[in-house]
Structures are given as structure tokens and as C-alpha cells.
């Protein structure tokens, strides 16, 4: 059974269509990622699925319950960690946890098994007020509070934005553990390199879904030839490469530029035309999620 089922969901704010008729589904115990930049509609989608706002059009169910009709029931079954820290800053760590437990009518000790692996890391600071916690600790507290009522579905809106690469890996490890305990997770991120940590992903941009698949499946959608090019003067190379026949795209990609070739591309001719560049190299390479995203955005 699908735990989340979204059908042609739309939501606008004035002239802006935050979500433009999107559809997808998430299976039980799946770790599903919404990958996209700001303005993709990720937060609007979370707010709709957690019943905080109503859609203009379309329908959706969470755990078999309708987001409009059954909103009260949904609220007791989902955990939601918004993008912005939203716990009580003047309550201590343990008071926040107790408060959220009380709101959901549960006892902290009843869900402790689920929360413990995360909460134990901040327990030494349990008497500290939440506003005095560091970014990483705030996040662990927010995740603990979102789990205290043993939700069947967890919604996490950009939990890794603005935190460093090491803390980001720690958070993904926690999500993997929660998924193994049977919790369905919908998580959003603007970092494309986090896509491979999800079972399936939806690439989102400007209120639409550009593609849904497993990360590997998404990569396989890339059907052009891709090369890595380098030379001593990388900036000049970018401009020059774009002028060569058969080059559909050339864009910076970490230490090299990525070059998307069309059918007219000839590697030898390319090297000949750019012969003035010192240490010019061009080698075929495998696309990444980000290449696919760029490609889909330009279509």
C-alpha cells in the first residue's frame, strides 16, 4: 500500500503557482527524497501533506487518510520537522520533549526506544534552553520531538540545509535507522549529492516534478554523451568549448567542465579546434544527478 498518494495537487499564492498539478506516491518504509532548489514547491507540499494548508486543486492521502477530510487523524500520525527551527526557545531540551509528548498524549518513556539513539546525543544538555543549543543539536532535538508520538510517516523539510558536510552524513545515518524501524520518510534537500541516500527521488523545480525514479534510474534517463574537459585556463575554455560544433552544453562541474555532446560532435575535431589551450584533455564521463537535473531544466 502507498503511504503517501498525491494526485494532481496544485497550490498558488497570488500569481505564483507554488505547486502545479503534481502527482507521486511513496511506499511504506520508503525513504523518498524531494530534490530541488528554493522555489521548487517543497515546503508547500509538506504544508499540504501535514494538513497545515489546503490545496487549490487535486487530492492526497497520508496513511490512507484524506488530507482535507481526515486532517485531525493525520496530525496524530505524522511527524513534521519544518525547515525553520520551531521548538520553544525558552524551554529546556527535556521540557521541549515532554511538551511535545504531552500534546500528542503519550509518555516520553513509551517512545523512548525510537527516540533514544538521537536523543542520547543531546541528553547531556537536557537542562539547557533550546535557544542556547548549536545548529546541529537543535536539529537533533527537533527530530526527537517529531518522533516522540511514534509517527508512521516522517516529514523533514531541508534538514541538512546550512549544516556542514560531516553533520549532514550523521543526519542521513539517523534517517536510515528510522527507515529500518518501518517509518516512511519524505525528506527534501537542495543538495543533489544527497539523492543517492534515498530509495527513490523526485526532482522538483518551480512547482513541477521533472522526474521520479530510483537515483540510478534517474541517471539512466540521461541519454546524451557526456565528457569531462580540462585545460590550464578553465574560464576561457568554457567560452571556447561552447563555440565548437556539436557541443550542446558546457558548464563548470567541480574540477572539470562537463560537456554535453549532440550527434554532430567529434572529439578529434574538438581537440583540433581548441589546439591553442595548453594541457587540454577530454574524456568520456558518467552523468550525475546534477547533470540530469540541468538537462531536464533546459528542456
Amino acid at each position, binding site marked *: 500500500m502507498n503511504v503517501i498518494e498525491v494526485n494532481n495537487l496544485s497550490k498558488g499564492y497570488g500569481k505564483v503557482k507554488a505547486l502545479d498539478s503534481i502527482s507521486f506516491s511513496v511506499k511504506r518504509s520508503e525513504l523518498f527524497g524531494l530534490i530541488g532548489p528554493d*522555489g521548487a514547491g517543497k515546503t508547500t507540499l509538506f504544508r499540504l501533506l501535514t494538513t497545515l494548508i489546503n490545496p487549490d486543486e487535486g487530492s492526497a492521502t497520508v496513511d490512507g487518510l484524506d488530507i482535507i477530510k481526515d486532517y485531525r487523524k493525520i496530525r496524530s500520525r505524522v511527524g513534521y520537522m519544518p525547515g525553520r527551527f520551531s521548538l520553544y526557545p525558552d524551554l529546556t531540551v527535556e521540557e521541549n520533549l515532554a511538551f511535545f509528548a504531552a500534546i500528542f498524549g503519550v509518555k516520553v518513556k513509551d517512545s523512548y526506544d525510537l527516540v533514544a539513539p538521537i536523543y542520547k546525543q543531546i541528553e547531556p544538555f537536557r537542562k539547557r534552553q533550546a535557544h542556547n543549543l548549536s545548529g546541529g543539536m537543535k536539529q537533533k532535538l527537533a527530530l526527537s520531538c517529531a518522533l516522540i508520538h511514534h509517527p508512521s510517516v516522517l516529514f523533514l523539510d531541508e534538514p541538512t540545509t546550512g549544516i556542514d558536510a560531516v553533520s549532514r552524513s550523521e543526519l542521513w545515518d539517523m534517517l536510515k535507522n528510522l527507515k529500518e524501524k518501518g517509518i516512511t520518510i519524505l525528506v527534501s534537500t537542495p543538495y543533489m*549529492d544527497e539523492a543517492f541516500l534515498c530509495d527513490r527521488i523526485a526532482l522538483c523545480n518551480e512547482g513541477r516534478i521533472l522526474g521520479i525514479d530510483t537515483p540510478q534510474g534517474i541517471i539512466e534517463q540521461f541519454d546524451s554523451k557526456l565528457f569531462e574537459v580540462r585545460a590550464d585556463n578553465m*574560464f576561457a575554455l568554457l567560452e571556447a568549448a561552447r563555440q565548437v560544433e556539436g557541443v550542446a552544453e558546457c558548464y563548470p562541474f567541480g*574540477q572539470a567542465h562537463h560537456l554535453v555532446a549532440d550527434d554532430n560532435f567529434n572529439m578529434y575535431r574538438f581537440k583540433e579546434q581548441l589546439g591553442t589551450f595548453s594541457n587540454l584533455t577530454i574524456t568520456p564521463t558518467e552523468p550525475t544527478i546534477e547533470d540530469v537535473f540541468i538537462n531536464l531544466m533546459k528542456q
Partner: protein
Amino acid sequence: MSETVISVRNLTKRFGDFTAVNNISFDVYRGEIFGFLGANGAGKTTAMRMLCGLSYPTSGSGTVAGFNVMREGEMIKRHIGYMSQRFSLYNTLTVGEKIKLFAGIYGLSKQVTAKRSEELLARLKFSSERDTLVKALPLGWKQKLAFAFAGIHRPEIIFLDEPTGGVDPVTRRQFWEMIYEAAEGGTTIFVTTHYMDEPEYCSRVSIIVDGEVRALDTPTRLKQQFNAVSMDEVFRMLARDAQRGE
């Protein structure tokens, strides 16, 4: 590349018993793209604030854009460009008004302002947006504008604090092309980021751990030194050894 735009020695900043930045020393040369990386809490923001003339070091010495970091904060502020992560101030102004605001803050004359305004709008192909409210622009456009504003007074160096956060991958690359172009033109760029492919675009990268500069070199040499395939790996190796939490 021998002319230094930033040259600091043993910069230290203490808050009570806590040493946020501990004895950092480095030079940044004209036209370089200098990446400044660090985990949350490593001391990156404190170090940047000292370099931008927003706070004085507890001890140390050095210059930024030719001015003394120990006592000429006001002069430093006037001679650098700065762009923060979020471009949210005065969004109820139009693009044209915002150019005038920035030019006014940096004390440009009316004639110079008019000229730079035309150039800026033409270069960004934004001439048709002069009367558009900044808040109505897509995020990527705002970020490009913010970068252009940071350079309106032609500073020798522009500080960029996580300039590409949340921006789509196409715009993110366009943004880096603007950085490349500025650096080609001789502007020094000092940039922080959480996207781990971006350090690869830098001329040199410094990694700050526990308030100290733990690594500083070109991306290629850092990868060799740490026997890593990417800057992401180099960063993780160093950041994992951090003693102090966030």
C-alpha cells in the same frame, strides 16, 4: 601573482575563555578565488568578520585592501564588497532604486552611479527590469544582482558568504561564471560554501578546524597531500578530527 590583497599574521579572537580563532596567518593574492571552508562552529564566521572590518582581533596583525585589520575597520568596510547568503534587505525597492542605494552607501557621485547602473544592467541583461521590485525576482536573479551590487564601488576584493545556498544548479553555475569573470578582471574573491563541488572552482582553498587554518593550497595539491579524490573527501578528513563541537 605576488601582490597581496589580504595579508594576515597570527590573527586571534577570544570571547572570554573561548578562543574562536587561534593564530591564523595567510596571504590572498590579487585575482585569486580563495575558498574558505570550515564546519559549523569552526570559527569561519568570526574570522570573516575580522577580515571585513566588522570586529577587531584580540591579537595579531595584517592588512585587508591595504588597511590595518587591527584598527582601520571603517576603511576596510569601504574598500571591500560583501554579499551575504540571504539578500533580503529592502526588497520593496526596485532594481534601479537598489542600485542607487548601494552606490549612495559607498559614496559614488551621481554621474558615476548613472554610468555604473547602465553598465550593470546591460551586463546582466537586466535593462528591462529596472523598475521591477527586487522581491518579485526569482532567487537566482536576486543572487546575481546581489553580487553585482557588492562590486558597485569596484572594490579590490569581494567577500561572498555562502552565495549559492538554495539556488538551482543552472543558476549556481551561472553565478560561478560571474565569479570567474570578476577574478579574470583582477577582483579578488573570498568565498565560503557548503556545496562541496564548489571548492574545486577555487584557485586556493583554506580549511579551518577548531579555529586554526589546518590546510591551505590549490585543490589539486590538497587532494594529493591527503590522498583524496575530491575536496569533499579532504574536507571530511579534516573536519572529522575537530575537537570542539558546534
